[in-house]
């Protein structure tokens, strides 16, 4: 189980290779990559700057992974979240979950992403032709996270 917050890009192949070479029980690896889009709320986005709360970020993501481990069979998990200034088509976030079977891998991966969106202390500021603006939290993200609370 591993959490990293970093400015540099990540390589999903290298991460998956490391994970499966370490555990021959792994049969299923679900992953998610978030990417900067060139348009948001109708405006073109030139750059996106991510700020976070060092310390709390790593702590809250580790807690989210622990919750996932309590619900599903998780053999290994990795979260990498980038901070700093990114541009459209850049990778922002990577979540990888390895399990014996695919159902657990998919569910735990989506669960971690939904909570990352609603609980981990990251904030995005977009640069558009109208200037810089902080991205508003989405109601749809809160709804996605609430699906798991039952």
């Amino acid at each position: 189980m591993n959490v990293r917050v970093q400015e540099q890009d990540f390589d999903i192949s290298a991460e998956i290779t490391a994970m499966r070479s370490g555990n021959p029980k792994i049969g299923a690896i679900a992953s998610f990559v978030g990417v900067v889009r060139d348009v948001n709320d109708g405006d073109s986005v030139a750059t996106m700057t991510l700020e976070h709360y060092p310390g709390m970020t790593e702590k809250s993501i580790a807690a989210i992974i622990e919750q996932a481990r309590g619900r599903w069979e998780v053999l290994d998990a990795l979260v990498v979240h980038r901070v700093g200034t990114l541009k459209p088509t850049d990778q922002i976030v990577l979540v990888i979950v390895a399990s014996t079977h695919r159902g657990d891998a998919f569910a735990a991966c989506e669960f971690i992403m939904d909570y990352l969106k609603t609980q981990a202390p990251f904030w995005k500021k977009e640069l558009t032709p109208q200037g810089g603006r902080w991205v508003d939290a989405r109601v749809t993200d809160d709804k996605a996270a609430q699906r798991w609370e039952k």
Partner: protein
Amino acid sequence: MITLLYFARLRESLGTGREELALPAAVKNLGALRVYLAQRGEAWAVEMAAGRNLRAAVNQTVATADTAVTDGDEVAFFPPVTGG
């Protein structure tokens, strides 16, 4: 003393990301701290207003108005998160 941290929109509009504060004797919890900070006026009144959609953490754990605040704590105020 407590450490106060402000992030994202709050950091910009308050003009600071971090300060040390001698905790007033009457401030026992997060709700009271927010009211105290709102009394600084201007941007503070706006950002800390009761109706403002604001989140907070005490010692890096999400907190609510009745979460206790005591000497030595790290308290953070920030807008709803937008990562991922």
